């Protein structure tokens, strides 16, 4: 009903606001009159827009009898096929950006709320406001210049100057220092640790020319896996839970053992199916390991094991993709300028190799996604900080603390779950909003998605195409709102539909 109304309004507004014949009227060409007549017939321009709308609607309602017809564009292509090509491109762009922004924003927002009024909190608040005020096209152009063009220049002559190493390390040190917080002495200890670690890593990267031939290698993966096992246990079930910790460690160990077989499988059977099968194997292993470790209360242990296994498996996957880097940058299409600024694929890159193709997609995704993440990150930092502070003031949090639960359980089990309720409905809305926001990003980075299609439609007064794009976006908003309501009532048992 609402869809009908809004599409009617947009159709008429657009029809009255635009004049597809304007260009022809101005032309002095002899055939102009004929062209006008032909176009009028083709687009039914002699029918007034409110009535023409119903002609369009008839095509749309054909959907129910399996005969959808959204009309043709002015180049004579069918609108459906244009849309079908553009949708996956936009979804790919927006989905990756939303998920990353949510995870990062939640983490930063939660820590910011837990350290309310600390240096870190003030820093995050300022960062959020700054990101809020950035025009996305401006950021996108900056990213293009500094992350792509300059970075490519840097790669052709890779050498990190000492000055930058120190500046970057100081920055990391301050970040971690204020993140972990505490007394002044503690701050400086953390600062020193982070500074030194970062400096050594940068130096090692520079020394080994890592960025020309990146990869993690089994040793680094083993170290990281053990670290991840401890980290996941600490947040997911508490470091004192020995069984969970051991299960996580076993998972990490298995991942490392699996490194070489996985390499072989990846090299010979690289496809999405393989990745999914390995993922399923991984989860099954997680369940099995947790079964081996405990007979009672398996839930948290299985959770810890699976999350650890998942992250470790992800590391191995990243490692495999990184191994294609050298080959990728050496191809003719890339020619040692691996960070692209334009388009969603490199057309010149013709290869059957699964990993090269994926690396190409990822490299093209990086910049636009980064731009979208920067823009939507601000919102998530603010929302999650606000939501957690609100929840922490509730009585049940005080009760939980009063009955002696430790702070980790209070935060992860009582506060976090309640905080996610209002955020879950925001998630859908934010996703839909980003689809609209992607218009500008697509334009800057030359992606052939929904936004580009919309701009093209407006510029060429292509009513059918415009209505197609508009219909799809409105449909997203309506289903998004419905989904948000359903999700909310499914998650929160206190909310019941009235009557």
């Amino acid at each position: 009903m609402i869809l009908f109304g809004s599409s009617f309004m947009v159709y008429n507004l657009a029809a009255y606001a635009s004049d597809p014949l304007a260009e022809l009227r101005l032309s002095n060409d002899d055939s102009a009159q004929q062209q006008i007549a032909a176009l009028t017939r083709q687009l039914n321009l002699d029918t007034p827009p409110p009535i023409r709308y119903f002609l369009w609607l008839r095509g749309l309602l054909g959907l129910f009898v399996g005969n959808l017809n959204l009309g043709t564009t002015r180049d004579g292509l069918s609108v459906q096929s244009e849309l079908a090509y553009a949708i996956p491109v936009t979804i790919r762009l927006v989905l990756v950006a939303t998920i990353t922004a949510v995870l990062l924003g939640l983490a930063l927002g939660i820590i910011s709320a837990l350290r309310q009024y600390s240096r870190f909190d003030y820093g995050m608040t300022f960062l959020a406001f700054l990101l809020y005020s950035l025009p996305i096209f401006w950021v996108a152009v900056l990213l293009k210049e500094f992350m792509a063009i300059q970075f490519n220049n840097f790669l052709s002559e890779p050498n990190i100057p000492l000055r930058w190493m120190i500046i970057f390390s100081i920055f990391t040190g301050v970040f971690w220092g204020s993140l972990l917080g505490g007394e002044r002495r503690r701050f400086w200890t953390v600062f020193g640790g982070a500074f030194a670690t970062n400096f050594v890593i940068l130096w090692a990267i520079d020394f080994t020319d890592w960025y020309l031939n990146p990869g993690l290698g089994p040793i680094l993966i083993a170290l990281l896996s053990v670290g991840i096992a401890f980290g996941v246990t600490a947040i997911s079930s508490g470091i004192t839970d020995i069984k969970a910790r051991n299960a996580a460690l076993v998972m990490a160990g298995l991942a490392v053992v699996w490194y070489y077989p996985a390499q072989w499988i990846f090299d010979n059977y690289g496809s999405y199916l393989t990745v999914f099968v390995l993922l399923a194997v991984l989860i099954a292993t997680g369940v099995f390991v947790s079964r081996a470790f405990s007979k009672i209360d398996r839930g948290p242990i299985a959770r810890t094991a699976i999350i650890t296994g998942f992250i470790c498996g992800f590391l191995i996957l990243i490692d495999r993709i990184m191994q294609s880097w050298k080959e990728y940058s050496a191809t003719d299409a890339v020619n040692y300028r691996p960070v692209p600024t334009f388009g969603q694929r490199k057309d010149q890159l013709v290869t059957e190799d699964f990993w090269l193709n994926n690396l190409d997609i990822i490299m093209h995704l990086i910049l636009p996604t980064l731009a979208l993440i920067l823009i939507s990150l601000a919102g998530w930092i603010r929302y999650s900080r606000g939501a957690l502070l609100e929840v922490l003031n509730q009585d049940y949090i005080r009760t939980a603390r009063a009955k002696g639960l430790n702070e980790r359980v209070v935060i992860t089990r009582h506060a976090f779950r309640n905080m996610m309720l209002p955020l879950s409905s925001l998630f859908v809305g934010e996703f839909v909003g980003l689809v609209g926001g992607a218009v500008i990003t697509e334009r800057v980075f030359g992606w052939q998605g929904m936004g580009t299609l919309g701009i093209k439609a407006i510029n060429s007064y292509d009513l059918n195409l415009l209505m197609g794009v508009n219909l799809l976006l409105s449909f997203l908003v309506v289903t998004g709102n419905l989904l948000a309501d359903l999700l909310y009532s499914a998650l929160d048992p206190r909310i019941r539909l009235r009557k």
Partner: protein
Amino acid sequence: MNLFKRKEKATGEILAGGESAIANKEVEGLSQGQIVRRRFFRHRAAVGALVVLTSLIIFVMTALETKIGPIRIPGWWKWTTEDIPALRFEDCPGGTTGCPTLSLNPAGGFGLGTHPFGQDDIGRDYFALTMNGARRSLMIMFVIGAVAGFIGVVVGSIAGFYGKMVDAVLMRLVDFIQTVPTIIIAAVIGKAAGKVGPLYLALFLGILGWTGLARLVRAQFLSLREMEFVDAARVAGASNIRIAFKHILPNAVGQIIVSITLIMAGAILTETALSYLGFGVVAPDVSLGLLISQYESSFTTRPWLFWWPGLFIISIALCVNFIGDGLRDAFDPRQRRRITKKDRLQAKLQSKVGA
């Protein structure tokens, strides 16, 4: 895991009545307006933003000649957007022309030079262009804020006050406008309205932007109209209009102001984005987004053409956002000021003196 560690409060402090006692003492005997004003002025970032924004507006508005009908107020800047002085190419880096003469390097001496922001490709003074663009963008921002604020408040209060059928119809209207993807419809309208003039563009954008505010006002009205003071006013014989606008609206004004500042901060970004896409303010006119769009390709060679307008957009939006945040904190009754050591000490001293 240290991440979850919480600061413990000293026992003595909790015994002494805690922080709420200190906070309550401060607002004793003050009117609501006074409390809000005090809270706002204590928010350092917001006050700073207010000062910066005000001076920025005065700076931008007086820089160029202003025409209000027959009256002409001359600006203090020596170039206008129509002047085409000769392109300067002395001491510009890498053979470029029209580089900025602004020098903030203490060693070289502070100085504005003839063209502090540089010149564009045909030699027009970029400072004048930026000022003109900023002026346009500010104007559009305020018009959108005013139009969207007005419609939002009126529709929201009518829907919330009358409820039932009126509410249902108006809220469907809101749903309806929210379904239309803003950027697309704004682009359609902008394409047509851009030719007519930026003022109309702003009006149209305002007509699209009120839905969130209307929802907010409606929610406030729905809860406020059940309050006792509304019954009291009705018993005293006040008319519906009077109750809605004299009794209920002032209670909702905090949220409304905050929401309008957020709309304005969003508006300047929408306007610049539209102009960037080519659907907002169009060529003979200047706006910040249009400037960026025009000189995007020259970023590598003459970056100043890209930096200055962007800097102005960010500083305006940032200031408005910070003011909005300060207002939100000031109007939120649950928000308490952070109690510092100094406050505790003072409270202790006072209680001793009292005893």
